[in-house]
């Protein structure tokens, strides 16, 4: 756990992983700019992991910017707010970035509104008990902004009998191209520290780590300075630049030198990991009464005319965001892939009409400059995938089993521990779609398990 304060040459990391090209130079120096309001917003009712929202509005309802328009659908679910003053135009199916059609609220913006937030600041957090705090965070619609969109308040609810000795703020942003967390740390360090202060008020952790990959020395520097004067037990930890350093388990291993046991959560090693931007959102909620209605999105790729970090109201269609950044310069769209998220784990979009949601950390346009057509060969057992897998799986074996459809044996070889970072497919010299086949295998195994459970009941 020894701290390494050499920003440029940290030693803390996990074992295995890969070094893809970073491509961060496109946007890492671009100040966050505000996206102008557009005419229409699409707000899918399940932007987070967990139960979908229950709408509180009807077609024709007038809504205000920041007004809650849907309640959480359960404990593992968060509220949803309108990003604009406007009118509910429709409630119906729309395609979400994951490719499914989901119930969504369509809001037509009021073009004469000033779109000022009419803040309803919650009561001071210092007067709250932890239960009130947790439901307040749920009410603010805050989720993990790193990409998985896991409800933040669920993480903050430390189960009975468990302790939270360490809070880890995740500022790794190990996906190539993305810089939204980076810019948030550099431009809103006070919000990051303030959000930490609010969380620490309730969790009273022994130590707070802010893990940042060493390719963001400006963020390390400014947060180290701010941490010094904060009076909080914060240590900013520069980490080796390696993908997937920002994965929860990899960060815990890098900083604490411990592994999270299989099937367990970070809290089982007395740790809570949360994204830095989510923490800044906590501060905005408790100080300004602003729920999660906008987020920083990195719009990037060599085919984007003007790559930028944009503060986008949730629900804005990708088309508008891309147009705001000058559009796509690549003449043939056939080679182009448009992703939400980074190139390693992002989701490809079949059109530009899907909206930016809470988990959208980036809009990335890749062309044949970056995406190569791979010829596929047989596995030559070079073991590059074994040396890349941060979970120390045997992707070569799993790939062979997936090809033959031997799901049981895949499970015996721990495929369910795979978190789909894509390192195996990245390194495979034979171009075998390893992680892609594991996704299929995992969902089939989960389906079979669910069926067996049904039979038993």
């Amino acid at each position, binding site marked *: 756990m020894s701290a390494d304060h050499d920003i440029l040459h940290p030693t803390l990391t996990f074992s295995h992983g890969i070094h893809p090209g970073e491509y961060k130079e496109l946007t890492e120096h671009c100040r966050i700019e505000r996206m102008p309001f557009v005419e229409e917003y699409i707000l899918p009712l399940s932007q987070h992991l967990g139960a979908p929202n229950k709408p509180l509005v009807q077609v024709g309802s007038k809504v205000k910017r920041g007004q809650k328009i849907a309640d959480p659908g359960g404990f593992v679910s968060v509220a949803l707010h309108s990003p604009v003053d406007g009118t509910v135009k429709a409630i119906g199916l729309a395609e979400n970035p994951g490719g499914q059609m989901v119930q969504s609220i369509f809001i037509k913006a009021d073009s004469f509104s000033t779109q000022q937030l009419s803040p309803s600041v919650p009561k001071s957090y210092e007067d709250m008990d932890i239960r009130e705090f947790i439901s307040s965070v749920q009410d603010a619609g805050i989720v993990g902004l790193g990409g998985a969109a896991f409800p933040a308040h669920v993480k903050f609810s430390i189960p009975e009998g468990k302790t939270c000795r360490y809070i880890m703020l995740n500022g790794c942003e190990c996906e190539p191209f993305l810089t939204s967390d980076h810019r948030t740390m550099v431009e809103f360090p006070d919000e990051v520290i303030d959000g930490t202060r609010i969380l620490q008020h309730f969790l009273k952790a022994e130590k707070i780590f802010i893990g940042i990959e060493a390719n963001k020395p400006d963020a390390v520097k400014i947060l180290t300075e701010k941490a010094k004067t904060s009076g909080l037990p914060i240590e900013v930890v520069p980490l080796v630049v390696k993908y997937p350093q920002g994965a929860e388990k990899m960060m815990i291993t890098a900083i604490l030198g411990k592994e999270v046991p299989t099937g367990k959560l970070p809290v089982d090693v007395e740790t809570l990991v949360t994204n830095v931007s989510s923490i800044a959102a906590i501060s905005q909620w408790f100080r300004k009464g602003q729920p999660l209605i906008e987020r920083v999105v990195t719009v990037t790729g060599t085919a984007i005319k003007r790559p930028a970090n944009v503060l986008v109201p949730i629900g804005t269609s990708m088309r508008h965001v891309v147009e705001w950044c000058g559009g796509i310069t690549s003449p043939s769209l056939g080679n182009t892939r448009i992703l939400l998220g980074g190139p390693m784990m992002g989701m490809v979009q079949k059109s530009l009409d899907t909206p930016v949601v809470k988990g959208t950390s980036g809009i990335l346009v890749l062309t044949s400059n970056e995406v190569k057509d791979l010829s596929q060969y047989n596995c030559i057992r070079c073991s590059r995938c074994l040396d890349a897998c941060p979970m120390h799986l045997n992707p070569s074996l799993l790939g062979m089993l997936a090809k033959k459809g031997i799901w049981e044996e895949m499970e015996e070889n721990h495929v369910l521990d795979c978190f789909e970072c894509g390192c195996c497919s990245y390194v495979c010299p*034979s171009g075998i779609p390893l992680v892609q086949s594991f996704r299929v295998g995992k969902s089939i195994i989960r389906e079979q398990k669910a069926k067996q459970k049904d039979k038993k009941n």
Partner: protein
Amino acid sequence: MSTDKKLTVSTSPFLHDKATTPWIMYQVVYSLIPVIGAAYYFFGLGALAVLSFSVAGCLATEVLFSKTAQDNGKATYSFDKIKDGSALITGLLLGLTLPPGFPLWMAFLGGVVSIGMGKMIWGGLGQNVFNPALVGRAFLQATFPTAITTWSPPDGRYFEFRGNNIGIPFFKAENVDGVTTATPLSKMKFDHYFTDWQDLLFGNTGGSLGETCGILFVLAGIYLIARKIIHWRIPVALLLTVIVFSGIFWLIDPLRYPSPVFMLFSGGLMLGTVYMATDLVTSPITPKGAWIYAIGIGVFVVLIRLWGGLPEGVMYAILLMNAATPLINKYVKVKTYGYK
């Protein structure tokens, strides 16, 4: 942007490392260039001729097995498969295990067996259990025991064929120069004569094309490890095993047993260690498995060399451990993150 419908949909990741299977294969081929140069330096035109014929045998067989039937009943052959470079490596490695004066038709036949029996009947690239070049070599050793143990000495004849190079298939070959020598290992085995270590290191000895300059193989091995084409585990474990195991006997009786240095740089140990034991396809995939495999080869090499009926044991040692590899892969597992 009315062309939205033409966007390509696929799943992440979208970036890929520069290393592809053909790239890896050609890195190995490039690393062999100095070795081939040394073979020419010591054995002249005969060396290049043997290499060319074994490569030709391998490539021809690969093309032959690419035969696909068409709807009109005509068969077509594809040259695509040979572009990945793997058959080229097999051909070069087989050639390097053969004597400089070896009949060229036999070298070609060896290439046919290497690819045909060593690779294609298993299902092609990546599917074989045994190293294809060694399968070809084992066939040649069993079928033509005299030819494969007739050694032409290293000398300055750069532009002449050697020994039985131009023999006619299946007829008793005429040795064109009539000059033969013995290898350091057979001198050790049958005459109890230990060749100077300087000659071994720099390759000034009789032997197969790739049994000469030990130093070149050390350099090639370091190059391949540095470029991450092969991993250091197998060469290091294998050579250490040979040093320790043979060193024990040498210390007990240095007059009867050869020194570890002699063991390392005589025969095909260096060629086998750097290029055959490390064959990606036929060696275990897990780190622990690689250790078991490499130590196994080291033990077999010493056993066969010191007590076997043959002077050289590298080929059989590797083939034996190749046979054990599927089992090692099955039982030696990786330790997954989060498991005890």
